[in-house]
């Protein structure tokens, strides 16, 4: 029912999403990071729209539209404003080391493919590909969250995990629309909460480098 070309295009978008996830890890400037995140959301919405087209599932178009409006436009704009107000839009973030992070990223992608392909042997081709790519996007988002010191980058890692979840859900033939809408809004609420939290951290410690929080937990820095 699904032609090889349709499958190839779906594969292209899903693989592109993994690639943009790796690009997120490669960025070391705030504005570049936020722009790449907007691209991430754009790719996920195109991928979902293509799935809606080849699966004849019109409700997925709404999912794609939500992803496009909220995550590719609203959240990046909000984050950029937040970063400008915090005065960190020009800072270059000290990443662990781009080379090491890239190696870890390659390892995680290989791991997720190796794990996902055998355990989804009965599922359809599309679902298998999407699940393995989605798992790698999620793992890369987690890697982003643990390898960055700046709270804003961690927020972006969190959001990219959510994009990976959407990819997994659409590949597995259907996420109910209610779930998708509620997830999208909870992400928005999370953004607001995190935003307020960021400003509180900054007021208190005059930086958003979360390493300073460790001292207040009684740990040695």
């Amino acid at each position: 029912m699904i032609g090889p070309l349709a499958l190839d295009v779906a594969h292209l978008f899903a693989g592109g999403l993994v690639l943009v996830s790796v690009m997120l890890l490669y960025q070391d400037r705030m504005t570049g990071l936020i722009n790449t995140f907007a691209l991430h959301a754009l790719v996920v919405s195109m991928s979902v729209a293509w799935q809606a087209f080849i699966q004849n599932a019109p409700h997925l178009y709404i999912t794609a539209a939500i992803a496009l409006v909220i995550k590719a436009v609203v959240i990046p704009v909000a984050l950029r404003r937040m970063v400008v107000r915090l005065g960190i839009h020009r800072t270059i973030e000290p990443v662990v080391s781009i080379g090491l992070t890239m190696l870890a990223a390659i390892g995680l992608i290989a791991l997720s493919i190796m794990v996902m392909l055998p355990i989804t042997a009965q599922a359809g081709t599309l679902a298998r590909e999407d699940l393995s790519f989605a798992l790698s996007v999620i793992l890369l988002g987690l890697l982003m969250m643990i390898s960055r010191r700046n709270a804003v980058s961690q927020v972006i890692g969190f959001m990219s995990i959510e994009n990976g979840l959407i990819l997994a859900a659409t590949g597995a033939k259907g996420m109910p629309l209610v779930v998708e809408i509620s997830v999208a809004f909870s992400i928005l609420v999370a953004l607001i909460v995190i935003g307020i939290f960021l400003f509180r951290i900054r007021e208190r410690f005059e930086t958003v480098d979360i390493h300073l929080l460790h001292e207040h937990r009684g740990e040695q820095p």
Partner: protein
Amino acid sequence: MDLIIALAVQGTQMALVLALAPLLLGFTRKVKARLLRRRGPPMLQPYRDLLRLIRKEVVLADNASWLFRSGPYMVFSATWVAAALVPTFATGLHFSWAADLIAITALIGSARFFLALLGMDVGTSFGGIGASREMMFATLAEPAMIMIAFTVALVAGSTQLSAIAQFMLTSGSLRVSLGLALAALVIVALAENARIPVDNPATHLELTMVHEAMILEYSGRHLALIELASFVKLLLYISVIGCVFAPWGIAAAGDGFTATLTGLAAYVGKLALAGFLLAAFETAIAKMRVFRVSDFLGAALMLGVLAALLRFVSRLT
């Protein structure tokens, strides 16, 4: 008789790459100058430069060894053989069984090895800096090239360029692995040919040059050979990209004379397009710091590995 014709076609190809390489560079320089609203040197200028260099006397340093004198011939011959093997306008050439992607990578690698040795031979500090930088880039560019070769071989089922070109012509599907491999190959090609984000071919500023630093001690016909080898190398990379990722119009084995002519026209068209894109790209971006290059090439390596990994997921049946 067939053998003679086959050898003649192969000889045409060898002569063609040698003849077109300076023109390609002249064209790129011209386009770049026009994009910067300058007049630029005439397109035939690289030929004139080469002729002038060949006529000039060779000045040798006192402590130059035999390697210094024989090295340019090795660099040039390895590069020329590699370029002559790549199917440019027709796939069924007589020596196409030897046109293996890995063999071509190895030929380029040995040319680079000799060039780095030559840079260090006289013992000036610039040559040493250039050679060590070239080797630093090579440690990342060569694995990336090998990963690209693996990816293409996994997709097409062969490392032979003729077979790959035939496969790409007939299969006609979109593959994310090939897109990633193309991006990686473009990055490797920019780095290997010392083009702008990695090295500036037009500068003699000491701290930034890589390729120029290695050949600083050369003059006369030796310099002409090394320059010609670098022109041929640019043409070689563009031919490989064209043969693997855009093989349209290339003549198949046993095609007639008209098909070969069409292939030739398509090849020249592809070269012109690539030269134009290269010039446009170079005017749009700035050169990066030497220590950023490892990140840039690391991205190419990463893309190559990713392409090979994603190949295992695509089109499972």
